[in-house]
């Protein structure tokens, strides 16, 4: 009896109900603004003293990188042999190197180089990594399999060694560094994005969006990317110190930016020759500021990760 009544009621449903909505146009237009989540994140971030310190330091270092070289009458390349290896004083705030070049100006010029490389590397890594990982995870199946096998092989290579090899071939220079870092750097990001997309693409809200006629494009833009943005931003933040370290490392090996351009790595390398002579400022200032920059980005990235991690929410 029951079966029959159910059948009957099912047949009572008007047929119009089963006509699918036209795609895109008549989709539900109510969006959730979603800014309360980010407000939460910001609150947690600024409650973290170390992360806030990092953010302020990044801000100050950026300002100084822009205006620092203009604060003195010396340029990063102007030499003054008579004043070679002068200790810090009123004219040369951080002293001079063996060619009489002003260390203060060179340190902030090096900050420009380092921050530029860090940001460029993070941006390129973001573009390639998100595109590659996104396609791989979203498409799935064979495409995913092939794309990930390629990544697996590349992931098995020692990162910095490959960068060194690329630099030997491409020759030293600012842009070759960025290219070399980009060729190897996107792999981690691609894996991260793919993992996130795989996890999210079967989530119920994605299914709901699809049922309501959301296109692939819309699903990726409105649902997948915003929900993976946390880990992506953290990964980008932490790429910056990695890239800055890589630049300094390459410059230290003589594969980085070329003289007379100053970078923290080349300045440290130049200081190696005078390390036991008492010209302490030659090493101290570039060493201090590269460490400060790495510190700032690392603690800020960590703080960001903690702020975004839902596990920390109480």
């Amino acid at each position, binding site marked *: 009896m029951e079966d029959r009544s159910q059948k009957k009621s099912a047949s009572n449903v008007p047929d119009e109900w089963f006509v699918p909505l036209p795609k895109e146009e008549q989709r539900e237009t109510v969006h959730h603004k979603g800014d309360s989540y980010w407000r939460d994140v910001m609150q947690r971030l600024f409650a973290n003293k170390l992360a806030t310190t990092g953010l302020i330091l990044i801000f100050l270092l950026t300002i100084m990188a822009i205006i620092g070289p203009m604060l003195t009458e010396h340029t990063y390349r102007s030499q003054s042999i008579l004043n070679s290896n002068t200790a810090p004083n009123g004219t040369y705030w951080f002293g001079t190197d063996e060619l009489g070049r002003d260390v203060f100006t060179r340190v902030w010029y090096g900050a420009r180089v380092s921050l530029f490389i860090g940001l460029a590397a993070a941006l390129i890594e973001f573009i390639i990594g998100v595109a590659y990982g996104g396609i791989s995870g979203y498409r799935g199946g064979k495409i995913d399999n092939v794309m990930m096998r390629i990544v697996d*092989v590349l992931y098995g290579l020692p990162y910095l*060694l490959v960068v*060194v090899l690329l630099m030997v*071939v491409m020759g030293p220079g600012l842009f070759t560094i960025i290219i070399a870092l980009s060729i190897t750097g996107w792999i981690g990001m691609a894996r991260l994005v793919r993992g996130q997309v795989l996890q999210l693409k079967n989530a119920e809200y994605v299914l709901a969006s699809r049922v309501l006629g959301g296109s692939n494009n819309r699903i990726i833009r409105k649902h997948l990317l915003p929900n993976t943005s946390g880990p992506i931003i953290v990964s980008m933040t932490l790429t910056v110190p990695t890239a800055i370290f890589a630049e300094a*490392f390459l410059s230290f090996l003589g594969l980085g930016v070329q003289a007379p351009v100053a970078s923290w790595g080349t300045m440290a390398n130049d200081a190696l020759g005078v*390390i036991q002579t008492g010209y302490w400022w030659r*090493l101290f200032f570039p060493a201090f500021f590269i*460490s400060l920059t790495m510190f700032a980005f690392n603690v800020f990235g960590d703080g960001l990760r903690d702020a975004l991690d839902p596990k920390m929410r109480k």
Partner: protein
Amino acid sequence: MLKFIGKRFLWMLVTLWVIITVTFVLMRFAPGSPLDVDDVGMSEQARANMMAHYNLDQPVIMQYFNYLKNAVTFDFGPSMVTRSREVSDMLASGFPASLQLGLVTLVLAVISGIILGVLAALRHNKMIDYVTMFIAIIGISIPNFIQAMLFIQYISTQFDFFPTAQWGTWRHAILPALALASGPIAIIARMTRSNMLEVLTEDYIKTAKAKGLSNFQIVVKHALRNALLPVVTILGVLVASIFTGSFVVERIFAIPGVGQYFVESITNRDYPMIMATTIIYSTIFIIMMFIVDVVYGIIDPRIQLHKKEE
């Protein structure tokens, strides 16, 4: 399990092949070679002999197969700069120092990293926790070559106890190993700490406490074992960072190791040497990654390796 190891082994071989091939191709494209410079006016015959000496007179594809064959047997031919010496001999002479330094660094990093991480977790939000995290942040922030130089400038020159520019006794190894290890120590300590904090809240820790086990037993037998599992996975990456770090640290401390040769070969564009060093380091790294994956599968029974990995 065996199937996984076999599959993983095959992938290891593919990765090895890729790095060997990539190195070969890149070095063929690399500009300039020590043979181009003939300031002494090299005769045609001499140049031809030279090319034959380095196997450069054959078609590229033959060079490639020769190279592949030789790479398997670690025979990389003569150096282009020190022409009378074989690359393999030079590397062999530098290998002991590098190996010693690398092992000391790795042991130092793993042991002190774990101890610091555990102490920090057990005294969460107490003094030692803050101190450990401070050390960890310093270790990550100061690049290893900067640390090495700072050590020389501020420690070595003040205390005769730490000699530089020599290699022999254990005292020579302390500062370079410390400079190399501090980054890995920081990473291991942070990871151990956060894992321990997570594990210590688990129910089985409460059970262990309720059974009346001593704190030591709980920490070592129940918590640490689970907390250390993820640490195993990053060992491969850490070894790689110790390798690359050792290039510069060996140069700074003038340690007669492989890293020295590598840096010199980059400056001199000694391609056979660059290729050989890259391949040897990559091989060690790739084998490490393989071992780490397999070991991880063995020590963590929760992982089902034969299932498709995500």
